[in-house]
């Protein structure tokens, strides 16, 4: 009963100074709307970058890291004197085989792992693409195309041809879009590839892909694993890299560590491989929260000021209410509820405005006319969590901003006011 009386007083107060209430509300509205817009856009950018990144980076990449053990040297054996200490200055790394030994065993073992979704062996080499007089630097990945396709969803990224074409043709090659444009080749054309060691082979273009990252589309091609082994003059078990897709890619760092220990090869997770992207994601997130919280705190100060002004102009009313039997908590309810109503209305209109703005942005064409990034519209994501956070934060800010002046109002001694 008492609450409804207090609320009706609060309502009368709010309505008797509509302009002031609306201004206070707009402060919250813009704060929340900007928060929604910024977080939706920034998270959209993060998501876009992560997707792009994951389309080119495996969850876990196992490879043989070149490292020469410089602590042993045959120089010691040469002098055969245990009393002499032999120091070799500036030794050169020794020639090492870059391949993963027992690759087939490791692959078979990985496929049994319940966390692993797909495993793709890889042999990569630098090549020169020769077509007519043009000679371009790049590299080719020798893969089992059906496995590779499961890792990176290559089917969806084919601009021309199909991935299976690689299996059915003898010396087929699937080329990056940028590379194909530079060489001006189309499916069906023959290109000559030369390795740094001098061997050459002719391949027929059976497909063209576009991942959306210029630095890959301009230099990379897929061929069959056996073709690269042949080109390099290696045997059928020669593999330098194993790419793994996990069922849950958030587990990558831990799994990478376990694989590295188990197989004794370097295993890199996608977060580490793309630490700069992950860092910029974190920076964007932090920036978003800092700016949004600043906006809301400013809105909170606006409410704090308006409530203080209201209370200063209502000292007589507070005194009369107290004299008539309204207790301290009634006074707090009267003024705090005004602030909360402002906060709630502000937050709701803020969410609506924020949604409208983010929706508009998500329908705005992205002004990119180059082929480096494949982005049609500004990346925006819509998550319920952001909206819940927005409304909660709006309410909490206005609660705190309204609480202090309300408590101050409740402490007013009516005798001081009534005696004049």
């Amino acid at each position, binding site marked *: 009963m008492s609450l409804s009386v207090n609320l009706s007083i609060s309502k009368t107060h709010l309505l008797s100074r509509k302009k002031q209430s609306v201004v206070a509300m707009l402060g919250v509205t813009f704060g929340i709307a900007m928060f929604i817009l910024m977080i939706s856009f920034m998270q959209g950018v993060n998501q876009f970058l992560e997707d792009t990144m994951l389309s080119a980076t495996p969850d876990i990449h196992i490879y043989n890291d070149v490292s020469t053990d410089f602590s042993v040297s045959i120089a010691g054996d040469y002098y055969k004197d245990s009393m002499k200490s032999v120091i070799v200055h500036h030794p050169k790394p020794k020639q090492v085989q870059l391949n993963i030994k027992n690759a087939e065993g490791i692959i078979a073992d990985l496929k049994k792992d319940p966390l692993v979704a797909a495993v793709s062996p890889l042999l990569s080499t630098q090549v020169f693409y020769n077509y007519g007089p043009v000679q371009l630097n790049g590299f080719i990945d020798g893969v089992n195309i059906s496995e590779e396709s499961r890792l990176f969803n290559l089917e969806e990224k084919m601009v021309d041809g199909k991935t299976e074409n690689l299996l059915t043709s003898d010396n087929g090659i699937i080329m990056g879009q940028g590379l194909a444009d530079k060489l001006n080749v189309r499916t069906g054309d023959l290109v000559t590839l030369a390795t740094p060691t001098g061997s050459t082979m002719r391949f027929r273009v059976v497909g063209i892909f576009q991942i959306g990252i210029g630095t890959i589309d301009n230099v990379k091609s897929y061929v069959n694993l056996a073709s690269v082994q042949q080109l390099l003059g290696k045997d059928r078990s020669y593999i330098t890299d194993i790419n793994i897709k996990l069922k849950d890619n958030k587990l990558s760092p831990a799994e990478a560590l376990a694989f590295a220990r188990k197989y004794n090869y370097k295993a890199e997770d996608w977060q580490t491989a793309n630490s700069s992207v992950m860092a910029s994601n974190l920076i964007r997130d932090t920036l978003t929260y800092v700016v949004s919280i600043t906006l809301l705190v400013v809105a909170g100060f606006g409410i704090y000021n308006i409530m203080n002004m209201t209370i200063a102009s209502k000292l007589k009313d507070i005194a009369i209410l107290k004299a008539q*039997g309204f207790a301290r908590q009634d006074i707090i309810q009267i003024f705090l509820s005004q602030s909360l109503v402002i906060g709630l209305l502000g937050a709701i209109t803020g969410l609506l405005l924020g949604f409208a703005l983010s929706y508009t942005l998500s329908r705005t064409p992205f002004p990119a006319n180059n082929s480096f990034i494949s982005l049609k519209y500004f990346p925006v994501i819509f998550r319920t969590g952001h909206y819940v956070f927005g409304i909660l934060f709006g309410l909490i800010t206005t609660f705190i901003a309204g609480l202090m002046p309300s408590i101050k109002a409740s402490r007013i001694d009516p*005798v001081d006011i009534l005696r004049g």
Partner: protein
Amino acid sequence: MSEILNAIHLNKYFYEPEPFQVLRDISFSVDKGEFVSLVGKSGSGKSTLLYLLSTLDTDYAGTIMINNIKVTGQSQNALSKFRNENIGFVFQFHFLLPEFTAIENVMLPALKLGKYSRNKIEEMAMEKLKLMDMQSFARKLSGKLSGGQQQRVAIARALINDPLIIMADEPTGNLDSSNSKIVFDIFQDLSRNRGNTIITVTHDTDFAHRADRIIELVDGHLAHS
């Protein structure tokens, strides 16, 4: 007649700007239905005494009993409830809530008390306004009423919960003589014909002398007459 208010050895000090004893050992009682005027020169402590009796000011020594209930030493929340139920206020500067209509102002204490439904309270408030001959202004914003009209609405508000005592602080202090007379007539009617107990502070000697009893304060003492 039964005693409705008992003040026993009241002492009060002001500490600002310097320690000063404003009330000195005041004891008296008021009977039910009595119309009492508290008079005295400016600074004699008559308003201070009224605020003590009204339970708004709790910083004093001594005991106050209202209707045989000891109000001294009760919690602020309990006193708020007690005032709401048992004490009606009329102040010098009317003190209506300006954003509310006259009838809403009258209804507020009853709504706070929560004893009756809203419709019933509205009916009661209208009745009190009629008593003050203010029923035609019921739906007007109280800020738009004249001083005399506001004071009559304030008296209606003081009556809404049928309080044990009506306390008034210079109720005519801000009114011209014709309005003062109206207010006085209302008070007299309330006390004589309706059995309301009224304690009013005034420096208007005419007004004071028409009350049942005058309690005069001189420098914080009761001046016996």
